[in-house]
């Protein structure tokens, strides 16, 4: 009977969660870094124009770059000091990206926007969206989609449910767990603003049932609000995937190529909700974020509040440095995070964790041939056929890739995780997606 009360979706996998390293460590403030690097592209959308130049003195919280485009989120200085350069730096997403470098100096008192701490119902949706955009808030679960864009409900659509994603299904990561425990009220408060912004009637908070304390904390925080429900979901990867969570909580299918709002839902991460609350109550732009640093390769795993732009080397230092020989440094969780080539890359808005795996933990990359065992088919929460997509991507059969719905892949990694032949399925699917996208672009450009 208990099982029945737990919401879930079909398929998926059960990787070892390994959250014990940091799940009971409180979020701490990291020591102030000497230099920060703020990339000007920390969101999906148009790139930003810097509004500061070399040698400028900036205060903490000062706007560094913005764009005229709607689909963009401005960035702010998370450290007071002098701008030493505006140049291309290695990006955590790979490649190079324009960034503002700031050397610490002077008063670190932050500059807050003037926001009269109004209650949600006193504000119009538009006002909330404005404030959220000014604060530069993007999705903090990893995708970094500008939050105000998510909240802008297009004409003809309406939102009935606003879901706060507290599933945190990525193994190792515990930061959302800690946020819910330590800042539960802020999360619920953020949810109320988000509901107001989208005019959603119902707020839903989904939390995997391996975090009973967080469930309890949020239930009590939300107890006074009738229109907010806190629900347990099955501990299963990728429960935190937007589409999975919607399926689990509301049993709605987000259409292929569509967004949650097509089924009347908006999903936000708990950290995002907390940031929304902070921006509306205190006028605080998104300049710090909590994250988990963990893994077998870290001496003192824990959860830290980190100024954006802090090089990950600093965070690693704060967590006691490497334990043993580091093999992989991953931004994000082990299932979807990105392995880094360098420790100079900065923490950005979507960095929910830094995972360090030791060299000894890594297996040799030696994929065997696919034997059609179909474990990937049985694991894929999106009902795709990864084994086939891999082959189609190899052969660059773009028409068939589209026919097989390659664009519907959420890159959760379940297929690669279960593959007995160690096939780089997700990697091939990404190649395929990139090729399909490129073709679409060139077709649009051509016509």
């Amino acid at each position, binding site marked *: 009977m208990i099982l029945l009360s737990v919401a879930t979706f079909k398929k998926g996998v059960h990787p070892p969660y390994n959250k014990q390293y940091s799940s009971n460590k409180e979020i701490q403030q990291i020591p102030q870094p000497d230099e920060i690097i703020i990339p000007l592209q920390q969101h999906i959308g148009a790139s930003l124009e810097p509004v500061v130049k070399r040698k400028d003195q900036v205060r903490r919280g000062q706007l560094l770059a913005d764009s005229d485009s709607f689909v963009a989120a401005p960035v702010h200085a998370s450290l007071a000091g002098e701008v030493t350069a505006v*140049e*291309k730096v*290695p*990006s955590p*997403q*790979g*490649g*190079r990206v324009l960034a503002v470098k700031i050397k610490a100096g002077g008063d670190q008192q932050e500059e807050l926007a003037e926001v009269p701490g109004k209650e949600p119902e006193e504000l119009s949706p538009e006002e909330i969206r404005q404030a959220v955009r000014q604060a530069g808030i993007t999705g903090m679960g990893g995708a970094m989609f500008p939050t105000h864009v998510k909240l802008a409900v297009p004409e003809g659509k309406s939102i009935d449910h606003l879901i706060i994603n507290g599933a945190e299904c990525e193994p190792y990561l515990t930061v959302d767990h800690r946020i819910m425990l330590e800042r539960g009220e802020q999360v619920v408060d953020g949810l109320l603003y988000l509901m107001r912004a989208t005019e959603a009637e119902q707020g839903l908070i989904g939390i995997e049932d391996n975090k009973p304390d967080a469930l309890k904390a949020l239930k009590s925080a939300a107890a006074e609000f009738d229109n907010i429900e806190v629900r347990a979901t099955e501990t299963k990867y990728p429960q935190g995937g937007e589409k999975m969570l919607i399926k689990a909580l509301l049993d709605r299918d987000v259409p292929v190529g569509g967004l949650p709002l097509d089924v009347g839902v908006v999903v936000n991460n708990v950290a995002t909700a907390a940031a929304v609350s902070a921006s509306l109550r205190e006028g605080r732009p998104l300049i710090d974020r909590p994250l988990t640093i963990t893994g077998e390769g870290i001496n003192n795993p824990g959860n830290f509040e980190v100024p954006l732009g802090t090089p990950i080397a600093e965070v690693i230092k704060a967590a006691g440095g490497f334990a043993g020989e580091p093999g992989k440094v991953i931004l994000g969780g082990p299932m979807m995070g*990105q*392995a*880094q*080539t*360098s420790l100079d890359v900065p923490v950005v808005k979507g960095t929910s964790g830094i995972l360090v795996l030791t060299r000894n933990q890594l297996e040799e*990359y030696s994929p065997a041939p696919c034997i059609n065992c179909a474990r990937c088919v049985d694991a894929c929460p999106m009902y795709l056929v990864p084994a086939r997509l891999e082959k189609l991507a190899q052969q660059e059969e773009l028409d068939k890739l589209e026919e097989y719905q390659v664009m519907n892949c959420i890159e959760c990694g379940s297929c690669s995780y279960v593959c007995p032949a160690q096939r*780089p399925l997700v*990697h*091939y699917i*990404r*190649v395929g997606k*990139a*090729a399909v996208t490129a073709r679409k672009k060139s077709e649009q450009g051509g016509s």
Partner: protein
Amino acid sequence: MDSIFLYAFLSMGVLAAFLAAGLGFASRTFYVEKDPRVEEANEILPGANCGACGYAGCENFAEAVVRGETPVTSCPVGGDEVAEKLAELLGAEAETAEKEIARLLCKGGRQETAKNASYQGIESCVAASAIGLAEKKCSYSCLGFGDYEEVCPFDAITMNDNGLPVVHDDKCTACNKCVEKCPHDLFVLGPASGQNHIRCSSHDPGKVVRKICEVGCIACTQCVRVCPVDAIEMQDNLAVLDYDKCINCGLCAEKCPVNTIDFYGEKITEIEITEDCIGCTKCAQECPVDAITGEAKERHEIDREKCIKCGICYNVCPVDAVDKDTSRD
């Protein structure tokens, strides 16, 4: 028994006439305007409609050939002869331009370029770049998996021991496949006669390049300054060569302090104006360093101090009165 002859004659005659009438009727009634080249290609083909090419009949194949979907060699029945004729038909317009060859705009192989990390995954440049992973620190550099080896339909690209692709000039047909494929856009088509190549694509500032690549362009602009014909231009920290202007003198390669520029041609070691000079002054006008002096209608002289041995005078002299000595570098 004679009736057999009669019946045979009549019945087959009637049947054949019937067939012919049908065919003639069909070819007129259902005449459709088509790409004339398809018709021509169809004429060249055997017309046996055997399907061995994989298409539904010769006409279908002709259409595919004209659209460039299938190589001219794919009609097994027609053999080489048909392939040649088809190539002739389709190549008619392509022949006019100068022969081009794919060139690689990166010289930083495993030895020259600093390594950043060790990549494990699909051994393909496209795959590595699709997730933004690269082993080398230089984010503009050749990823070194050699996708083009497979991409090149003419086997004109092989990977060398240093992890860089090598284009074999004799096999390259400038089909543009490698240019399209390379995720870092490191291939360009240059004239086959071109002897100078700036083999770098990095837009990083010189100080960054210096740290991560031994042969990367550090944007010192020396080549720009030395070029007698202004064929080199700095574009965002990178020297870019205009093949149309280049005269293949090799001066830039000589000057480049980091050896980014390759010169395959023959460097002029000695140049002088012979007695054949008619004093047309053409060379003097063209000389980029004003090293040629002399009155009109008299034999000109080259000032050895000033001369940079670019060879322009040799090229422009209308009466071949300039002699040069070359030696391979």
